[in-house]
């Protein structure tokens, strides 16, 4: 497959954007049903996106103009690249290069970095506050997330290529199974860290709507805001897909296996939505204590169990 086409159309930008919009609709609809409401129509995320594209772009006086406008684009490019790498590994496990798992981990951080840079560039005290919270949250959740990602690497005998991880799980069953408690613990840790990486409740501390008015995004309007929203929707698709690849054995598209594959992803998505609808927001210091305390200890336990071959 032509790499440029792959990046722009099929597993890359267009595909991820369309599915991301669909997925964010599912998120909003499930939220509405949990609150006993009807919820938005199917095309609502698309309407929001088109409307934001048609609005005026306001650049605040005294802000760093180029950084302010480029930050959302970097985030979008990074999440597109991650999605392309993940889907190429799922579709063609033989392809890919050694160490693309590490590349994926790095690029998953860049959307958060883009939010931080954009927030600081917009010269607004509230945006700066939100960006500094985002930075602390990133410091907090990276450590347990990487500990969780190390577990499948150890279990598959030191594979750091995504395709090898998929092949290993095709041959020996998924990492998340009752024979290996380390895999189960690692998935739990990864889901908690994912909630923070997506900045959803209980870890929506950076953009706390009722407290600091959507934080780093406060000065954004029109197309740049649309790009940020799209990045968030695509993250909501890409990050659970990464976990599906790492822990649940990727996806298969032969016959009935396709339903089982989709179920894996939808189960993770609904889990995220239910966590977000049944928890209050925590403070940033509580979040850091939580991540560096219990969650990191759980992650270390998982790594030790994996090293012992459990």
């Amino acid at each position, binding site marked *: 497959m032509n790499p440029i086409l792959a990046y722009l159309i099929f597993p890359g930008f267009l595909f991820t954007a369309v599915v991301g919009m669909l997925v964010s609709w599912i998120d909003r609809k499930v939220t509405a049903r949990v609150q*006993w409401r009807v919820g938005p129509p199917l095309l609502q995320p698309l309407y929001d996106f088109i409307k934001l594209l048609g609005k005026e772009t*306001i650049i605040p006086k005294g802000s760093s103009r180029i950084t302010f406008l480029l930050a959302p684009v970097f985030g979008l490019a990074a999440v597109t690249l991650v999605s392309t790498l993940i889907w190429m590994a799922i579709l063609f496990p033989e392809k890919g290069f050694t160490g693309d798992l590490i590349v994926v981990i790095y690029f998953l951080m860049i959307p958060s970095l883009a939010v931080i840079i954009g927030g600081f560039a917009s010269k607004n005290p509230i945006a700066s506050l939100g960006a500094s919270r985002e930075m602390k949250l990133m410091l907090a959740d990276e450590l347990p997330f990487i500990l969780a990602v190390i577990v499948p690497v150890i279990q598959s005998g030191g594979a750091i290529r995504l395709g090898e991880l998929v092949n290993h799980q095709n041959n020996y069953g998924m990492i998340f199974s009752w024979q290996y408690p380390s895999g189960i613990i690692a998935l739990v840790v990864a889901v908690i860290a994912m909630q923070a990486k997506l900045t959803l409740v209980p870890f929506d501390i950076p953009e706390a709507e009722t407290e600091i008015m959507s934080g780093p995004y406060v000065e954004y309007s029109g197309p740049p805001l649309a790009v940020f929203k799209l990045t968030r929707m695509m993250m909501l698709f890409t990050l659970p897909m990464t976990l599906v690849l790492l822990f649940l054995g990727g996806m298969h598209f032969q016959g009935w296996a396709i339903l089982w594959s989709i179920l894996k992803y939808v189960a993770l998505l609904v889990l995220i939505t239910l966590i977000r609808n049944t928890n209050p927001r925590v403070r940033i210091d509580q979040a850091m204590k939580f991540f560096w305390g219990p969650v990191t200890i759980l992650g270390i336990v998982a790594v030790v169990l994996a090293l012992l071959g459990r």
Partner: protein
Amino acid sequence: MGIKLKALTKSPWVYHLSTGSCNNCDIEILDCLTPRYDLERFGIVLVGSPRHADALLVTGNMTLKCIPRAKEVYEQMPKPGVVIAVGTCSLGHGLFSGSYVMPKTVDEVLPVDIYIPGCPPKPEAIIAGVAKLLKTLRQKA
């Protein structure tokens, strides 16, 4: 202009601006956003920043201190955008007519698109008013 306005009618994000109201209309607006009335069906979401807003929901009549601030908030809202005046006070002076701190009505300061009367208006009345506004905008687009 066509598709811009059309998309706007499908997802109007609302910023709630209180310019010296008695808080009654504000509570009724919050009632609109509860699960019972469920405005997210129309794509209406309450946003925290005027930069994200498509509609400015103004309650109360303009006090002297609020006039420059209301103008500033209106200028911060990216265009195209609409202004909705809610409650009897924001239509004229209401209960406070003749007061020395309230020299102007809302429509003397901001270009109001629709007026929703009532002291306070019921949530049903607010929803009906917004739906009428969206209908006229859709015809204009």
